[in-house]
Each structure stands twice: as structure tokens, then as C-alpha cells.
């Protein structure tokens, strides 16, 4: 087995730690995340509060863990939904070609023209701030990327000899897409999804920062940042910690994506 890329290791480790924290929060957190105890605010790290408490006496570690869970859930569902829909549309365009391809690709271009974050803010503001609407907004802005990527790769596959052979033996478009095209573009789509994951985490943080994402009392890294903003001089750790979590997660997914791409495409690795 050949050596795995370094970025894969680092990215995997970062994502692994965050994902582990999120998973653990499903069954155990140091404190209850919704508990407010003003008399306990601004506590330094202690045996009871491992990372101290915030301005309302909530346990920071608990907030970070449940925040990780919320961030990852939103990103996973949103990228999953957006990716599935985008890939399906891309495969359709790649298989049909002609007018269908024109329309699908031009629609993708059209939605590319909107800045993704602004578009998500618009959706969240129009339909009311909530967990579900944040997922829908982020899923929606993920569609066009997957349309482009899957359509372009699918078209290449459609020109391969084995596809021509399959067509010559009168197999249907759906069967060819399922048996030949999808398995061949899966690696590229997965790499794309990993990288989009990082973007989704960022957009969720931005939405929550603006009050349009996860609603209280559910913790969110973005809202922790915005709530601690005026406390920068009093309790800098309250902004630094959620900030570090966002940086670690985004960096982790980007490195993981890079590593997976190198793995999936050995020529790129040699070219570097």
C-alpha cells in the first residue's frame, strides 16, 4: 500500500476530533446545554467546568460539543441533499445532452451568479430563522457546484469505449448511468462534497452569527461568537474557543478534501 498524503492525515485527525466530540455529545455532555446559571458566569476552567463558563454561566465545553453536533448535522444534511440533487441533475444533463444539458447548466450558472452567503441569508430571512431553514438554504446553494462537476465528468465517461459498447448492446441511458457513469464519477463527487462541507460549516456559522441559523437555546459556534463579541476584553476565551473550532473544522475538511483528491487522482500528486 502506498503512502497516504500528509494532508489526509492532518485533515482526518482534525475532523475526527470534532466529529468525536459531536458524537459524544449525543450521549453525554459535561453539563446540560440549556442551563443558565448567572451566578456561575465567567468561571475559569475547573474540574466542574473544563473550559470555564460563559456570560450566562453556561458550560463552554458543553456549548462547543453541542455546537459541533449542530454544525456537522446541518453541513451533513445540507451537503447530502444539495449533492444528491445536484449530482442527479448533472447526470441527467450528461446523459441527455442537447437542450436538457443547456437548460440545466444555464440554470446552474444562473444560481452561481448569486453570492452564496447572501442567497442563504435571503432564504433564511424570508422563511424565518430555524434549524430546518438553515439546512434548506445551505443545501440549495450547494446544488449548482455538483451539477457542474458531475455533468462535466459524466460527459467524459459517456465518450469512453466501454460506454459505446454498452450502448451498442442496446442498454438504456438509466442503466448505463447507474452501472458505468456513476461509479466512475463517484470519487470526484465525494472529493467535492468534502470540500463543500467546509463551506457549509462556514455558512452555518455566518447564518447563526447573524441570528438566522440555529436558534437558542441550541448552541451554535456562530452565535457563541456574536454573543461574546462585546466581551472580547473581559473574557477573550469566549470568542477564541468557538473561533478555533470553526477554523479547525474548516481546515480539516479542506485538507481531507485535498488528500482524497490526491488519492483519487495519482497523476495530480506526481505533478506537484
Amino acid at each position, binding site marked *: 500500500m502506498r503512502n497516504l498524503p500528509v494532508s489526509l492525515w492532518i485533515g482526518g485527525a482534525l475532523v475526527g476530533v470534532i466529529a468525536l466530540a459531536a458524537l459524544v455529545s449525543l450521549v453525554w455532555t459535561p453539563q446540560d446545554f*440549556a*442551563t*443558565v446559571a*448567572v*451566578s456561575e*458566569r465567567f468561571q475559569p476552567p475547573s474540574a466542574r467546568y473544563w473550559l470555564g463558563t460563559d*456570560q*450566562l*454561566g453556561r458550560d463552554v465545553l458543553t456549548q462547543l460539543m453541542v455546537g459541533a453536533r449542530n454544525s456537522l448535522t446541518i453541513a451533513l444534511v445540507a451537503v447530502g441533499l444539495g449533492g444528491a440533487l445536484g449530482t442527479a441533475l448533472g447526470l441527467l444533463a450528461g446523459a441527455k445532452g442537447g437542450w436538457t444539458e443547456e437548460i440545466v447548466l444555464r440554470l446552474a450558472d444562473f444560481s452561481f451568479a448569486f453570492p452564496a452567503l447572501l442567497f442563504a441569508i435571503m432564504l433564511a430571512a424570508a422563511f*424565518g*430563522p430555524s434549524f430546518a431553514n438553515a439546512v434548506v438554504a445551505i443545501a440549495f446553494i450547494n446544488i449548482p457546484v455538483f451539477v457542474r462537476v458531475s455533468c462535466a465528468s459524466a460527459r467524459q465517461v459517456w465518450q469512453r469505449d466501454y460506454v459505446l459498447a454498452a450502448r451498442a448492446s442496446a442498454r438504456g441511458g438509466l442503466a448505463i448511468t447507474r452501472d458505468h457513469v456513476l461509479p466512475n464519477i463517484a470519487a470526484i463527487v465525494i472529493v467535492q462534497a468534502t470540500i463543500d462541507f467546509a463551506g457549509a460549516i462556514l455558512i452555518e456559522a455566518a447564518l447563526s452569527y447573524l*441570528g438566522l441559523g440555529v*436558534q*437558542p*437555546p441550541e448552541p451554535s459556534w456562530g452565535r457563541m461568537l456574536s454573543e461574546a*463579541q*462585546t*466581551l*472580547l*476584553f*473581559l473574557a477573550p476565551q469566549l470568542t477564541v474557543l468557538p473561533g478555533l473550532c470553526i477554523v479547525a473544522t474548516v481546515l480539516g475538511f479542506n485538507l481531507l478534501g485535498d488528500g482524497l483528491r490526491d488519492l483519487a487522482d495519482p497523476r495530480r500528486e506526481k505533478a506537484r
Partner: protein
Amino acid sequence: MRRTALALTTALVALPLMALPGWARTEITLSTQQEPTVLDPTADATASIDSMLTQNVYESLTSVNEAGEVIPALATDWTVSEDGLTYTFTLASGVTFHDGTSFDAEDVLFSFNRAMAEDSTNPSKRIFEPITEITAPDAQTVVITIDHTDAFFLFNLAQGDASIVAPESVDGNATSPVGTGPFRFDSWTRGDRLTLVRNDDYRDLQDGMMERITFRFIADPTAVTNALMAGEIDGTAGFPSPELLPMFESDPRFTVAVGTTQGEVILALNNGRAPFDDIDARRAVNHGLNRQEIIDGAMYGYATPIGSFFPPSDANYVDLTGLYPFDPEVARSLLADAGIAEGTSIRLRIPPFAYATRSAVIIQAEMAAIGLDVEVEQLEWAAWMDQVYNGRDYEMTIIAHTSPNDLSNFTRGPNYFYGYDNPAFNTLWDQIVATADPVARGALLQDAQRFVADEAVHGFLFQLPSLGVYRTELSGYWVSSPVIFSPLADLRWTE
């Protein structure tokens, strides 16, 4: 050698300044959290309209000083008849509106008739409710007859709702206000700033009055802090982040002015719909509120708890904070009595003010402890006015009532956003208004405080403090706010 050079440089820099006798700064930039909806205080209840324009651009017959006493404004003098029902006002002479038209008794008649008209949109029509007749025997005299004695009448006439406007300019007041005050409106850049300039024709022009006053609309506490630190603004009357005050207190460039306001912050309950049409449900919420926790958590201790709807700075205040002691168990059993199931979902729809958003998180946790699942919804100010205040589409909200004498809010009936309607309270309030003797009126005001507290109409939280941060060289601002307007004619830069 080095020291000489420094002294020389200092002298060179200081020289031009000293060479200009009478040089003084006459411009100031202040910030305010809330942007006005329109610029006409006789058309809309938004507090920032009054705080910027009333008694600055617009004037009323009377005014109020920082101690809360009624003082002359457009009426230089007045007499009240023996029976307390006829007021004769003598108007200031030689006054012109900012557009050059003259001011006389006809303008007063016009303003009052407009506010009292059937189709008037005045937000406080009850001010004018006692008036039966208003006449102008001559151009400098106005006689107002009322049908019952009203202890607050002269005080009420000072408010922005009773601003004197001119028939020639009234239609444009929403966007380009014209009044008689010491400052004239210059410009309003929506979302950014509003500028006033000195009215050089003002009848009582003083030396050193500001030539230009700019209000920046900055809602974000961090942005206000940064703007103060960077010198972009010279002060703010409503500093939104009490946790940052110690930082300004220790900075010699700034003065922190902590005073009182008339602003009762309440957890308003919609008495007009389930579940808070039930007094047990309202009392349950009151037992579930831990005021000290809210004050410490949301205001960092800079607020006084209240148990009813009355400012603690008033001589007639009764401390009712002990009426519903914090006790989640009692609250739970009251909720059960009211037939409200554990985990009932309640919307807490809040306006975008720091005191509201910060209190909301704590109240949400406190309500969870008594079995109410509170969902916090943060609305933009215009949406809050539209859906909560006018549309009454809410179960809970958090709002500061900054008007003075506003116990009368509880007489506003089922169409006011409280949804509270109780003839017994209306009778009590009529009595208060009709009682001229201060001691007897004080006793009745105390009864009224007990009444609304006993009815648990809302969750009464705390009295909003007046937290001002100003440049040290600035003087003439109000530390406490007995009314929602704040006259700026006395602002001065000192050496």
C-alpha cells in the same frame, strides 16, 4: 536638546489654536440604537423620533426639565382657573417656523384639532381626550377647556405627541420636519444618520450652542464601542452594553453617566389570547421569573428590579418585587391549575434591542424550568411594530415602556397590544387623573401599582437605567430621563 525640540514643536502646534480667539467646537456626533420610522412624533410611537426631534426641532406649548418639572416652551406663561378646568396660555411672540412661516394661536388650534380629529393617527390621543373646547381670543392667547381636572395635563402637553406643527408644512413632516425649535432638520440618510443644524432665528439663542448635531444609527454594541473609541461619535445616551462600562469608566477621555429613566422593561404577556388570558398562567410566569438573575445576566447589575409598572425613582413608588417570589414549584402548580400541559410551546417575539435579546435567553431557561417551552423569535423593529404592537400576534415579548405616567397603558383596552381590559382599573385611573391633590393622587397611584401587579398583567422585570457615555469635554446632556425626549440646546464643548 531633545526636550527643546519637543517644546518648540508644541509651541508651533499650539500657536495657531491660540491665535484664533473664540475658537470653539460647535459640532457633535451622537449615536442612537433605534432608527426612527418617520420624523413626525404626532404620527408614530417610535421612541427615537421623540428622543431626537421633540423640543429640538419641534416644540410644544410646555416642556419638562431634567427634574421632571413642567417649564414654559412655546407658551411663555399660563393661568389655570379656580376649578382647574380652563387653561389660558400666553404664547411666545415673534416666533417663526423653520420654513419662515409665522407661529401664532392659529397653529396651536390647527395642531390640536388635527391630533384630536376622528381620523387622527396620533399615537397618544388620550392626552387630548379631556379637551372640550380650544379657542384663540387673539393671536398670542390660547384658551383650552377640559371637562375634568387632569393632574398630568400640562406635563402631557410637553410631549412630542402634542408638538405644534404648521398647516403649511405638516404634510411633509414625516420626512422633512418643520418646527419652531432651536435646531432645524438638515438631512436624513436612512440606515446611516440624521443631521440637525442650529436655527439661527431661534428666540432664545445661546452662546456656544451646537451648530450641527449628527445622530448616527448604530445598533450593534461593538460598533458603538468602536465608534466611541475611534472618536467617530462623541457620545451616546443609550449605551447598549453595560459590561463595557467599566472600561469607559477607567478611560479619562470619557464620562459614564448612569441615571434613571421612565422605562419599565416588561415581559409583556398577551392577555387577549390563550394561554395568558388566564390569570393563573400569568401568575405562574411571574413566580417563574428570577429578576436578579435577569438583571445580573442581561444588565450586569446596572438596573433596579420592579414588581409593577412604575419607576422606582418616583416618590410614589411601591416596592412590589416580593409579590410573586421566585418559586418554580408554585409556578408549576399554577400552570397545572390553568390546565397548561408540561412542554407547551410559547413564542417570545422580541424587538432587536440588547436588553430584550439578552433577557430572552435567560427567561427562556427560567421558563423551561417551570415547564414552558419558549421559542425566541427576534424581529426587526418595523416587523415588531407591525406584527406584535399593531397586529397583537404574540404570546410573550420583551419591551421597555419609556413614556412617563404610562400606567394609563392598562386602560387602552382590548385593541392595545396588552389585550388587557378591566373596567375597575379604568375607573381607578380616571380617579387618579381627576385628583389634583398630590398626596391623595399619590395614594391612588400606589393602588394602581398594586392593582396591575396583583392582576399579574405582565412579568415586570426591571427599570431601564440611563447609561450614557460621553466625551469628558462635553457638558449639558441629561443624565436621567424623566421623559422620552432629550433637549440638546444646552450641549456645550468645554475646555
